[in-house]
């Protein structure tokens, strides 16, 4: 085993990426003399043991023929980093999509499938189409996945050598595969390699949002409506009190009395009224804390969550079950089925299932430590093709937000008069909208990016470099699309360059430096001129939370915030790793039952019972029924496991009140739940067989319908339905200001 490890070590990690570059460049020169057909033959001839230099050189030459894009040395360096299993940090505009191709081909030639994980469906489709011709020359099949694709198309896409998809889609398919009842329904192959685009966004920012698959019985919808009408009759600040930062809301004594009287249910806090209390709590949250068109929108008769961070509707994301129902009741739309959670996984766990992952992003270096610790991924910083000549101007700090906004508007107005393109980055939808209003008042024409439409968004971003363009965008909008100076196509490029290139204005510092760098990196691509400046206020969330008073150095405040957030993520991981392990074990058992010929129900039944049953029904009938039963029971008790673990997790902080270590209590508790699961698995199978009837050579179990996999649906849920502390503080401060 250590030999293999050694080999891997020597083969993949120990070489410097630079060492192969000259060889590749030389080989490129040789190959560029050949004809298209010769190249095709050479590419198709590469077998399952690809040599890096040959593959990379061929890919570069073919890319030039097919796309007319010459690969720069730095792009090849990036590809080499990916091939080694690193995170390649490449600046915006350096051509990451193309840079990934040689590495993707190298992985794909192992014929075990490569997933290229993109930030959204639009990018998956665009990149797959854009690069497909290069792959075809190598005889590699390529496909992209998107939402709402039927299972057959998905299966075909996963069977391709290269599959472009969002991490969420892959995760949802994994969850669905975890519930199939026959091998034919599986759509995924075992995971091998993944190349992750925008790696910091996927592996750090969104890594912890659980992907959920749910199904089965639904809650009583009448309850949500009934409670909703009761909550409507309550008065703010008399019957209930939201806390300062609007993270929470509590009923007062008078509120409790009112609810109890209205529902006639006796004390709300009796054990039997838990369901009602939960619904009351959820309805209260829905009414007091969540605001239409800010926290969510109502569209086509359904409630959709707004991602405050990205500043747009979060597709496929829902609030935790009861809260979603309460909101739907509040908005009088049809209640979506809630069911129970049958499986869940985070992107972080998903990444852990690949044999090898690598990734690229414009901003990874500041998160180097975390990539190494959590994913064991080294970060390689790839130099830019041309030196960056962007001017990063020093921050300007204002006493409050109003002064800051005034200054921003003034700056935009002044610069806009020259015709220089401007991009203004904001932290949230709310900020972008208030800034938009101010600009309107000042008579500056501009466009705002906060729609949920990747394609249109990409188009706006692409035009943000046009002369006279003013674009307000949230931090994350339009990632993956370049801002071309002079518009797209760049007809006024020369003029835009003369004016100094794109001017990026930041309106707040984010808690992570890389998010700011991402914004800055919008300007000065490919050696273009450009400038960036941040206008800050003392009321910004970062400064309020981490205290500017003691430490006027914004950078060091950010570093503190980063290390704290990293610590929080690592603590969470300590809690979750054990669940992860259990999921893997149960998943493996399930796959064995599903696929292995050697598996027998005998391993789950007491010897005598097995012998009896086998005698009565015959081994074949028993084994078939056994598999069907075992799969159903596993799914059922796994859902219970998830519910129990969630319950344990939700209340674990109480033990620290008693001076106990919550992590220890949680881990031992989960271990116990897991042991219970094994014990229950066997018991339930034995019980079901004991209660089964043998009719027409088939076993009929009681409650047969439970074994049918009903409809399932997938969604992302959110760990913190009311935002993180800092987000809430920011909101609260904004609101206080508004009231004044």
């Amino acid at each position, binding site marked *: 085993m250590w030999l293999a490890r050694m080999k891997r070590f020597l083969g993949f990690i120990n070489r410097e990426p630079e060492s192969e570059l000259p060889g590749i460049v030389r080989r490129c020169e040789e190959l560029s003399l050949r004809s298209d057909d010769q190249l095709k033959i050479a590419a198709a001839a590469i077998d399952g043991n690809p040599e890096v230099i040959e593959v990379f050189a061929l890919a570069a030459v073919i890319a030039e023929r097919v796309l007319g894009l010459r690969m720069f040395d730095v792009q090849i360096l990036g590809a080499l980093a990916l091939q080694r299993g690193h995170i390649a940090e490449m600046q915006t505009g350096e051509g990451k999509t193309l840079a990934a191709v040689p590495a993707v081909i190298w992985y794909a030639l192992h014929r075990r499938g490569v997933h290229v994980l993109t930030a959204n469906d639009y990018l998956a489709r665009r990149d797959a189409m854009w690069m497909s011709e290069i792959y075809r020359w190598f005889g590699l099949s390529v496909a992209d996945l998107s939402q709402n694709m039927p299972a057959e198309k998905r299966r075909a896409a996963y069977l391709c050598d290269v599959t472009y998809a969002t991490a969420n889609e892959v995760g949802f398919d994994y969850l669905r595969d975890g519930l199939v009842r026959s091998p034919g329904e599986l759509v995924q192959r075992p995971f091998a390699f993944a190349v992750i685009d925008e790696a910091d966004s996927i592996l750090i920012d969104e890594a912890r949002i659980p992907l959920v698959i749910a199904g089965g019985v639904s809650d009583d919808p009448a309850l949500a409506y009934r409670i909703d009408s009761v909550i409507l009759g309550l008065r703010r600040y008399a019957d209930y009190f939201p806390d300062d930062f609007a993270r929470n809301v509590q009923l007062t004594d008078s509120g409790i009395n009112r609810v109890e009287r209205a529902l006639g249910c006796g004390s709300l806090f009796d054990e039997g009224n838990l369901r009602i209390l939960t619904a009351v709590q959820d309805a209260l949250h829905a009414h007091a804390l969540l605001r239409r068109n800010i926290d969510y929108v109502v569209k086509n008769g359904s409630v959709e969550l707004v991602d405050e961070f990205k500043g747009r509707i979060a597709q496929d994301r829902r609030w935790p079950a009861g809260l979603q129902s309460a909101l739907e009741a509040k908005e009088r739309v049809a209640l979506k089925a809630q069911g129970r959670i049958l499986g869940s996984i985070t992107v972080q766990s998903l990444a852990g299932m690949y044999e090898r992952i690598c990734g690229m992003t414009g901003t990874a270096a500041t998160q180097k430590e975390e990539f190494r610790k959590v994913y064991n991924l080294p970060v390689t910083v790839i130099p830019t093709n041309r030196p960056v000549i962007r001017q990063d101007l020093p921050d300007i700090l204002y006493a409050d937000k109003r002064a800051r906004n005034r200054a921003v508007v003034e700056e935009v107005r002044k610069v806009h008069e020259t015709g220089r393109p401007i991009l203004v980055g904001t932290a949230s939808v709310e900020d972008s909208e208030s800034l938009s209003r101010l600009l309107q008042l000042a008579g500056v024409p501009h466009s705002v990016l906060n729609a949920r439409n990747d394609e249109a968004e990409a188009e706006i971003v692409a035009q943000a470099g046009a002369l006279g363009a003013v674009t307000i965008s949230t931090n994350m909008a339009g990632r993956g699309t370049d801002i071309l100076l002079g518009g797209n196509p760049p007809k006024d490029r020369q003029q835009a360059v003369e004016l100094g290139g794109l001017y990026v204005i930041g309106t707040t510092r984010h808690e992570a430096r890389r998010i700011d760098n991402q914004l800055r990196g919008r300007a000065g691509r490919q050696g273009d001129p450009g400038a960036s400046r941040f206008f800050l206020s003392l009321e910004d969330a970062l400064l309020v939370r981490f205290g500017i008073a003691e430490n006027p150095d914004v950078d060091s405040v950010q570093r503190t915030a980063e290390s704290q957030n990293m610590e929080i993520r690592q603590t969470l991981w300590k809690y979750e790793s054990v669940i992860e392990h259990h999921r893997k074990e149960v998943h493996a058992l399930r796959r064995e039952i599903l696929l292995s010929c050697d598996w027998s129900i005998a391993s789950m039944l007491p010897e005598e019972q097995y012998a009896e049953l086998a005698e009565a029904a015959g081994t074949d009938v028993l084994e078939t029924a056994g598999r069907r039963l075992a799969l159903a029971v596993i799914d059922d008790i796994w859902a219970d496991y998830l519910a129990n673990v969630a319950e344990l997790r939700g209340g674990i902080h109480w033990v620290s009140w008693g*001076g106990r270590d919550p992590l*220890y209590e949680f881990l*031992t508790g989960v271990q*116990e739940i897991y042991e219970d699961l094994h014990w229950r698995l066997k018991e339930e199978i034995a019980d079901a067989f004991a209660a089964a009837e043998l009719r027409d050579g088939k076993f009929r179990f009681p409650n047969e319908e439970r074994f049918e996999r009903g409809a399932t649906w997938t969604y992302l849920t959110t760990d913190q339905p009311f935002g993180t502390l800092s987000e809430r503080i920011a909101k609260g401060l904004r609101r206080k200001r508004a009231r004044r």
Partner: protein
Amino acid sequence: MQKFFDAFANIFKIPDLRRRVLFTLFMLAVYRIGAFIPTPGIATNRFEDFFNRTAAGGFLGYFDLFSGGMLRRMTIFALGITPYITASIILQLLAVVIPTLEKLQKEGEMGRRKITQWTRYLTIALAIAQSFGIAAALQGSDGNFVLNPGIPFILMTILTLTTGSAFIMWLGEQISERGIGNGMSLLIFVGIIVGLPTAIREIYNHVFVIHDWAALQLIIILAIMFAVVGFIVLVERGERRIPVQYAKRIMGRKMMGGQSTHMPLKVNAGGVMPIIFASSLLALPQTALQFPVVKNSVWLSNMFGALAGNAPLYYLLFIVLIVFFGFFYVSIIFNPNEAADNMRKYGGFIPGIRPGKNTADYIDKILSKITLVGGLYLSILALIPQIMISGIKLQTLPLMGNFIDAHFPRWLLDGLGVRFYFGGTSLLIVVGVAMDTINQIEAQLIMRHYEGFTPRAGRIRGRRSSF
């Protein structure tokens, strides 16, 4: 038992855990080496004799206990971690009074780091003060301990002892951070546990060499020791679990038993702290007896004499003080109103009890009950060994003294004369630290997908209905 050894073997299978355990052992070894390096300029043997004769048992005795006997030997680690413990306690107490500190404490990692930093500074300050006190006392006493008295001696002693103390603090922090378990607790633990070989040898000598102990006596002592340890483990793990329900966000079809959320209230939340507070306070009259003013006044010496060790009044006062400090400590670390508020904030509640004041009252009532039990438990623990050694001098009680003297068994009045090598306090510390450390190792094992120490397999499980 098999499982226990498996778990033990697993520790060494996991590289990270193995490294942590070995690191901890190494740091502890370093600590022990320091325990043999004497402070320069002192006639150590003369001092140790003096210490054994006078100070053992009182406040200095605890001091010595925490430093693993290094005070009596006047080594460079003589101050032990006492300055650090004192500093921590002071800051903990101050956090109750000073709002800024309290806010810091709740602010998470950064706040805690700041408090740690202040604790360190305070530790150094206390160490300087204490080492000055020690140096001055050594020089001022008539025991001729100091070879070359003078200002240089005092300065050197301050430097040596303060540095030693700071070094110990560093060792402890290193263990907490890169090793396993709580570094400070482990250092105390080691200080106590190193007495074990000596004790065994002495007992062996008594029974097999000097033959002044009967084998039966040995068995009784061992039996009592085991019983006391078992008793401690039992009570230390004891807790009252207040069930906490909260509005669930995730729907489960059915809940398995035993997993309900609860707030555990420990029977003995204060650990050894109440005993230490109480005995420090009770050491005052004994110290006062040394003063000439008291010695010369019949009235005063009688009064303080009644409070001296093994007088009935002393025991009574001891118990009262332990219980009092138990309540005091719990009131510092646990505020029922805050707990109730917190519960309400998270949408939690105690089934059948309304949130807010009702909940706070309910928690307070339970807390009072178990804290009283905890106080009595600590009293028993602190007193039993003492009674066994020297008995309760009930005959000194007024009026019925003579009657008691005549009719009560002698072992009760005069004790067994048995020397206990480990008092209740030491045992409490040792057991507590051992349990914490094992829990931590177990958490590490489970996190890395190995089974832990705690046996679960033998548990009886009821059959539950299926589907």
